[in-house]
């Protein structure tokens, strides 16, 4: 069961998978796929993790695409674990990705893990704005529009990734969306990804007092008040 919310003036749906659906634009947005993570660890002489992360991530992405049928897909950055990850993809993974991309607009937002020019089809952007929503990898500190001199009053809300937020609920850790009326941070969609607790100080300046954490990872997206650093010890 998904959770519907309004960001800026747009109606959005936070899906239990951790993907964001924007029905008004037939748009699906996912963040931090970290494709090639296991391969990168191995390349750097670290542990040899089970090499099944790419197929698991793509299988879940495919299921979301089939469920939503988006015209546009935005990957919010850190889609690849590093600059060499794309080149290191197995042939079948590459073909699988190409199949998913076929027939729709696909936007790769640049992330800190995958800054370079990527040799893959689709549109490559540092950030992109569609109607009243601006998509970028890392949330801009301060007012939402300030990074490029736009006034917040313009009604532009922001959607970003990067932090991999997670939250505690019923004694278990869940990936989560964080959102208030002006800003939303997506959970990591990649299989081999950890998280940052929702009450971490990194989120302090980004959200207003009415912010929500929307847990996902199960079959239901559940909203709750976002735990705040300042109330952590109260």
């Amino acid at each position, binding site marked *: 069961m998904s959770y519907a919310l309004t960001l800026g003036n747009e109606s959005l749906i936070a899906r239990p998978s951790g993907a964001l659906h924007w029905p008004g634009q037939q748009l699906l947005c996912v963040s931090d796929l970290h494709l090639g993570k*296991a*391969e990168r660890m*191995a*390349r*750097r*002489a*670290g*542990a*040899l*993790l*089970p*090499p*099944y*992360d790419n*197929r*698991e991530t793509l299988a879940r992405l495919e299921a979301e695409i089939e469920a939503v049928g988006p015209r546009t897909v935005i990957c919010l950055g850190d889609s690849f674990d590093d600059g060499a990850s794309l080149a290191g993809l*197995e042939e079948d993974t590459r073909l699988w990705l190409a199949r998913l991309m076929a027939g729709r607009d696909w936007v790769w937002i640049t992330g800190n893990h995958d800054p370079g020019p990527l040799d893959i089809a689709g549109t490559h952007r540092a950030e992109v704005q569609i109607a009243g929503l601006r998509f970028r990898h890392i949330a801009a500190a301060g007012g939402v529009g300030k990074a490029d001199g736009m006034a917040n009053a313009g009604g532009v809300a922001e959607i970003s990734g990067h*932090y*991999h937020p997670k939250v*505690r609920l019923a*004694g*278990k*850790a869940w990936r989560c969306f964080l959102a208030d009326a002006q800003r939303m941070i997506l959970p*990591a969609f990649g*299989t*081999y*990804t*950890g*998280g*940052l*607790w929702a009450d*971490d100080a990194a989120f302090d300046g980004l959200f207003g007092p009415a912010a929500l954490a929307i847990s996902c990872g199960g079959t239901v997206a559940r909203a709750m008040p976002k735990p705040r650093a300042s*109330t*952590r*010890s*109260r």
Partner: protein
Amino acid sequence: MMQLPPALADWFTAKGWTLHPHQWEMLARAGDPATLLIAPTGGGKTLAGFLPTLAELTTSPAKGLHTLYISPLKALAADIRRNLRTPIEGANLPIRVEDRTGDTNYSQRRRQRADPPQILLTTPESLALLLSYEDAPRIFAGLQRVILDELHALAESKRGDQMTLLLARLQTLSPGLRRVGLSATVEDPPALARYLAPDTGILLADPGPAPDIAMLETDTPPPWAGGGGRYAIPAILEQVKRHRTTLIFHNTRAQAELFFHDLWLANTDDLPIGIHHGSLSREQRERVEAAMVAGALRAIVCTGSLDLGIDWGDVDLVIQVGAPKNVKRLVQRIGRANHRYNAPSKALLLPANRFEVVECKAALDAVRDGTLDGEPRGPGPRDVLCQHVLMTASSGPFDADALFAEVITAGPYAALTRAEFDATLDFVATGGYALRAYDRWQRLKLTQGLWHLRDPRAAVVIRQNLGTIIDVETLKVRLKNRAGGTPLGEVEEAFAATLTPGDTFLIGGQVVRYEGLREMTVEVSRQPGRDPKVAVFNGTKFATSTLLTQRILDIFQQDRWPDLPAHTASWLTLQREVSRLPDAHTLLCESFPHDGREHLVVYGFSGRNAQQTLGLLLTKAMEEAGLAPLGFVATDYATLIWGLDAVQDAAPLFDLTALQDGLETWLAGNAVMKRTFRASAIISGLIERSHQGRRKSGRQATFSSDILYDTLRKYDPGHLLLQITREEAMRGLIDFSRIEDMLGRAAGRIETRRLPRITPLAAPLFLEPGRIPVQGAGRERLADEAARRLMAAAGLA
């Protein structure tokens, strides 16, 4: 025979010391390739182990490492260094002794590698690290002797398994190496001897006088169920007053906390009493240890954290609260009292409930008869072997045939097949996945017949991750607004996650109120006078050993029980009248209605872990048979299941194959498996240890091992690490082998007694905490019935 050098002999004479016979005997056996010395606490074991080395180094001084001493505890290594200094400095012997543990500083460690002392005292982990360096062959080339202290304790864990592999490595580097094992009393000396080396001579020291041990009987009979022994606090305080220093052992930390809390409330004389267990902060434990050595404490409430051989001075009484579950541990604990050779140790057993009266009696009999228990440990686990292969590769290229030949000289790995070894090597080198993804990035590569690290820089990470002790993720507990203050202790992260502000729990003997979480610290405030929400953190659940179980069943078969307290004897007599007492040859099941529900009790006597597993599997079988079970509870001796329909014949539920199938399915998604997987994944080098500091800042970079477990189960269910996890879980918390044993013993003789009402032996089970609900058809039927009654009451049916 080796002589005692004059310098040492003179010094002993001057001090008025005479050697014990077993100490002379160790000198006589100095040249033997391997010797296991079994001696009681206080028997001068350590000196016996070192005497040949002191003699050799005095007679023919030589530079370089001569003797390596390995203890399971850092503190013990430091202790021994001080103790050795006395004879060495006293007799003015030209011998350098140093210790090397995780606490040794960097420059000292560097110097030790360049110029090793003659005697080096260390731990298995520090030895593994030393052996992982390229210069290991040079450091250990002249090694003459290795002394393994507290071998009985090491041999029960993966640290011991790792230790035997390290010994095999040392033997290769120094073929003339002689091995000495020092151990407290154990049940099967030949097995421990094989663990040490293939041809080990055994030397049994005089065990000393029999301990003075009895059951502590109280005016109030023990309660019907539960643990903790709080009913006996007045009697225990009385004992504390009568002795100099009393150790009060508990089986779990939570019980120790609860007991300590109530003991203080009753301690109107303000006797100095401390508490010591593994969840307390190191500072707090050290303070209690110091006070104890100084003789400032009259009693210490403690758990197994006090079990190992640190010298506790003036203890003259040990009280064991709750049935000891295991005779060997009891004997070793009793050894803590009167830590002097040739003086009997004094101990009291306090049964925590009515059933434990029988169990304590069985333990007393076992101690008097000198029989000890112990479960055979089974073959060496392969996650430890994976780490050993990585360690070996860090020190330099190796030949697979030679390494295999070396590994199978280690006791626990003697039965390892070449195929198993090759699978292990393949896992380390390539990941061992069905999808051969890492051809370019193999961890180990084969070049000209030798395996080596593909990237030599990997050695740094491998070294950081050596060792087989897996820390549970814990959080410190502090009083709020005392940021700089001493932490009260630590709780498991999983326990902290279940707390909500306002919850109260016990730590360090005080009731505290959970306030919140701040920067990986649990903040609490004092809340005296409130009832704590019982803290279940870190409760090690020991299962009663097979030997004790057998003795309990034997006691049940007596005609009368003149040597049991009257309340317990009459309880057993009544059980015999209305039903019967369980025995070892038949599996007794009782089926009766009680309080509107049907009940089934299975007296399996297989220990708590196995009875719990049995509860899960039987309720599943009952669910499938349409018997609508609602829940169950397990103890060391029985499982009680309640449900809507009566079980007329329990035998069909015990189909071993069906139980096994059920186990596989149930295990898959189980938290126990995920925890076991995490430990094996760290030991085998699949994931790195998370270091406290890194956890605070690194965050997104690390992810849960549960994700790896789920991924492997989905895409590579036959993977080596899943096999290892299953093997580990089966012999640990799941304890399925004891269910198999129980069914084997019964050999189809499963008797179901259908009775009109609850039986005396079953009654205490109804008071046990830890009831586990079954979410199945029974719940649905209850809901249906309730709905139908409501409809009927409203006239709608």
